[in-house]
């Protein structure tokens, strides 16, 4: 063991964890001060949202009645029933598993039956068009399950991070307000278009793809992989972060299918073991595999995942380890319109 090994060992005694609440709060306060009072407040609330929030599921009729009464319970997207995804607190605690315990269905889900992405887009778009438009300030309860595959055992330490989490969240449809009683996990799906500008997005799927690609790669040298990655990620971000107007959701499904290399699969499973249909962007030079899983009945997003195939773990010259991106997924176990934050269905 030389001096670099000793230094690395010393460094590894400090766990790699999420930023401490104190650092995060100080940063957010500073950012709030730097961006001005009104905007600052808005940004803090928006950005505390975990990047995981998909459109409300079916249940238009229930919504109209239920919101008046204060609460509207929506249909679960597939397999799992409301009794399984029970309300806050007890269920969350009871389901939490130790580090490294994989929930049902965890792992890359390439298995399934390949189908035409265009066909899936047509079916999904037609179905979501019948769903209601939701007001921007509508509160929504969501129970989110998150899983990250553990690192290989040969590089695990006593400070191995948790890999599994379930938490209750509340947000408004426009994503402006977010609250959680959990630890605020999130894996991906950050919107690149503000909610207030959704109405200005191009209506045609091809133009929509081009717009999203141009957002990240405005120069003339963007590769096909650059564009496909930014289009897929951009659409995923919008689908997850907001409750979108049904018409826009339908357009986004068509836009997904229009991305070169994107394909669809039936009979995929999410980490909760629910069967769904998925749009998949295969790994390319710019992106790991990305997957958006829809309910096979409501065609709303029920989970999203990413992972890297191939590659192997190698020890770096500085004594650390580098390897493929492990599988991770967030699944939305329960969703319901509620009358305010903290309210349970």
């Amino acid at each position, binding site marked *: 063991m030389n*001096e670099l090994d000793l230094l690395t060992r010393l460094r590894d*005694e400090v766990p790699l*964890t*999420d930023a*401490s609440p104190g650092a995060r709060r100080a940063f957010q306060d500073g950012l709030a001060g*730097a961006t001005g009072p009104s905007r600052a407040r808005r940004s803090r609330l*928006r*950005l505390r949202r975990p990047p995981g929030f998909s459109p409300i599921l079916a249940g238009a009729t229930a919504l109209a009645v239920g919101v008046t009464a204060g609460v509207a319970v929506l249909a679960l997207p597939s397999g799992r029933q409301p009794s399984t995804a029970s309300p806050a607190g007890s269920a969350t605690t009871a389901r939490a598993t130790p580090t490294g315990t994989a929930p049902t269905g965890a792992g890359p889900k390439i298995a399934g039956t390949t189908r035409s992405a265009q066909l899936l887009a047509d079916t999904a778009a037609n179905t979501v068009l019948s769903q209601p438009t939701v007001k921007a300030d509508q509160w929504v309860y969501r129970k989110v399950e998150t899983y990250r595959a553990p690192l290989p055992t040969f590089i695990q330490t006593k400070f191995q991070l948790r890999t599994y989490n379930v938490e209750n969240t509340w947000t408004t449809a426009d994503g402006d307000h977010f609250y959680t009683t959990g630890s605020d996990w999130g894996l991906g799906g950050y919107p690149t278009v503000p909610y207030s500008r959704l109405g200005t997005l191009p209506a045609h799927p091809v133009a929509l793809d081009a717009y999203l690609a141009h957002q990240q790669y405005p120069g003339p040298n963007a590769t096909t992989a650059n564009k496909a990655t930014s289009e897929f990620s951009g659409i995923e971000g919008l689908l997850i972060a907001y409750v979108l107007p049904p018409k826009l959701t339908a357009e986004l499904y068509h836009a997904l299918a229009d991305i070169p290399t994107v394909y669809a699969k039936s009979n995929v499973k999410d980490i909760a073991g629910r069967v769904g249909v998925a749009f998949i962007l295969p790994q390319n030079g710019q992106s790991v595999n990305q997957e958006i899983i829809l309910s096979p009945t409501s065609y709303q997003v029920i989970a999203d995942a990413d992972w890297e195939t191939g590659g192997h773990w190698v020890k770096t010259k500085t004594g650390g380890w580098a390897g493929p991106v492990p599988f991770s997924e967030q699944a939305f176990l329960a969703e319901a319109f509620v009358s305010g934050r903290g309210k349970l269905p």
Partner: protein
Amino acid sequence: MLDDAAIIRLSLTEPERFELLFQRHAPSIQRYVVRRLGADAADDIVSETFLLAFRQRGGYDCTRGNVLPWLYGIATNLLGRHRRDEIRLYRALARTGIDPVVAPFTDQVDERVTATAASRRLAAALAALPAAYRDALLLVTWGGLSYEETATALGVPVGTVRSRISRARADLRSTLGDLAPASTEETS
């Protein structure tokens, strides 16, 4: 997923997007700062690192892509205000064998006494290194940066980084003696 440069570009018109960089990179910066200065002081330095980066983002060269070297550079500059505290921690480890940085992460007393003879000598050697050597060495070993990234972080030529690390390693080997056999491998 948006890359770092895209987030910085977006944050010029939508400042709140900068928080995504915090979510993405704060864990790495935090571990680096905690290792060098302890958990108590880390909150301020980590938050200040990102706030300074936010204020300076207009001048960031987006062709660089990964912002980690830039963030590590800012954090290292901020750490410079706390040199004496940092050295005090290394000396405490060298003297007592108890790592004051690790203590908050474990509640078992026996696990706190982690330092081997080599670690204690290493801590003493770190305390004795010139600050510029220590910064270069720890950005590579604790920050995980390449020599080129370290040069970017410190704003010096890569050759300077190589020579600083080479001398720092020689100093450490000299202090460690037979506890750390000389390695023929040079990192780069």
